[in-house]
């Protein structure tokens, strides 16, 4: 029995890097897209705001598994290019999570007083400089804990990628149960591995949140 536990661990842990890589890339892409979405939703021109709202509504209300399949089967047909599973995974995850990231960033941005950019200009900074040195640091500090929480959700969503055959943790777990007939052991290992990553992110988020509170209090 102990031998099975050890062996399954060795097999399953090899999929760990895949899950992590497939989380990191979409995280940064979704972050960039999220900024764009937040900017869209806060634009002065109404059509831009509508586009932003439609984007968020669409990608939040479409189950991720459906989105993956639409991109996986649809892109080769519509754009007549061959697309590999990994690109499908990264693309779909980025699009999906960007909707959530966008809302979080928008929430952070809306809390910043509008006068900050003008105040920066008053002391001689350009519009871009006051954005870069005054607004964005504040937004990042305010937004990071919520972003880490959403990153946890992102990592958990990578498990759905298994449906198009990528060898990440959930898929490997399912495959190993077929050969070892010890499903409980296999999936417990998978769960533990997800748990470790997510829990560390959560702990990091809490640390940053506490540091934020201390900074705002001035200690």
């Amino acid at each position, binding site marked *: 029995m102990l031998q099975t536990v050890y062996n399954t661990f060795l097999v399953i842990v090899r999929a760990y890097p895949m899950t992590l890589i497939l989380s990191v890339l979409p995280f940064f892409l979704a972050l960039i897209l999220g900024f764009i979405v937040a900017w869209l939703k806060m634009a002065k021109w109404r059509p831009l705001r509508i586009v932003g709202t439609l984007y968020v*509504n*669409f990608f939040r*209300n*479409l*189950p*991720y*598994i*459906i*989105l993956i*399949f*639409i991109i996986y*089967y*649809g892109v080769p*047909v*519509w754009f007549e290019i061959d697309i590999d599973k990994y690109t499908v995974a990264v693309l779909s995850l980025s699009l999906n999570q960007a909707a959530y990231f966008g809302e979080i960033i928008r929430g952070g941005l809306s809390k910043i007083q509008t006068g900050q950019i003008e105040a920066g200009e008053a002391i001689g900074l350009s519009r871009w400089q006051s954005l870069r040195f005054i607004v964005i640091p504040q937004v990042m500090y305010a937004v990071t804990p919520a972003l880490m929480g959403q990153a*946890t959700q992102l*990592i*958990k*969503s*990578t*498990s*759905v990628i*298994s*449906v198009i055959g990528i060898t990440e*943790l*959930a898929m490997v*777990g*399912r495959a190993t*149960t077929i050969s070892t*007939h*010890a*499903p*409980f052991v296999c*999936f*417990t290992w*998978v*769960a533990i591995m*997800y*748990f470790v990553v*997510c*829990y560390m992110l*959560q702990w990091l988020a809490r640390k940053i949140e506490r540091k934020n509170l201390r900074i705002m209090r001035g200690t």
Partner: protein
Amino acid sequence: MPDFITESMTYILFMDHRDVFLMGLVRSFYALAAGMVLATVLGLACALLTYNDRGWLNKIIRLYITVIRNTPFLVQLYLIYFGLPSLGVRLSAFETGTLTIMLNSGAYISDIIKAGIQAVEKGQSEAAEALGLSTAQRFRLIIFPQALPQIIPSVMGQYLIMFQDTSLMAMVSYPELTRSIMDVGNETYYFVEAFIVGGVIYLVVLNVMELLSGLVERRFRLKTPGRRMA
């Protein structure tokens, strides 16, 4: 309806197989309804049980919630669907899926309820104590009614997430909407069209659910008189 829609493969596929899609949607709702009831009950129970610090019970429930929050729904589903039989328990796909939804959303709902309870000012609780109300009366008459406006929108949000989770039950062969879509796709090889139909159905249903939830919120805000006292 314009021709480019009625003559598109997507529409034709939808009309040809609409009974399959409909049955799938009904089964999704069936799982959702069961999940909503069970998860809410479980969440409420966990929140109430951890209201006062009871040592080991609190620790166990906290552990359960932490595990659920840090593992993916799909993995929880696999663990229960594939793992339970090896422990001797044999359940149907519907029962395992609903059980997973109950455990998963129950944990989130429990945290939502607890957060709502914390949000009620401490002064209310202390004032109630000063008036001589017991803990149970305090909770039932003062704290919980004031926590509800906070709790209900978030819980309804969790219901929406729950409906999206039912789409993952397709991976354990429960013939709900996503599974029906996959089956139609496998049968006709028109995968893109099938998933577009599914996507549209999910979008419509979830948007309707969002609208309903907004209606409930608005109705509810008119129903809380207590806020105007202070």
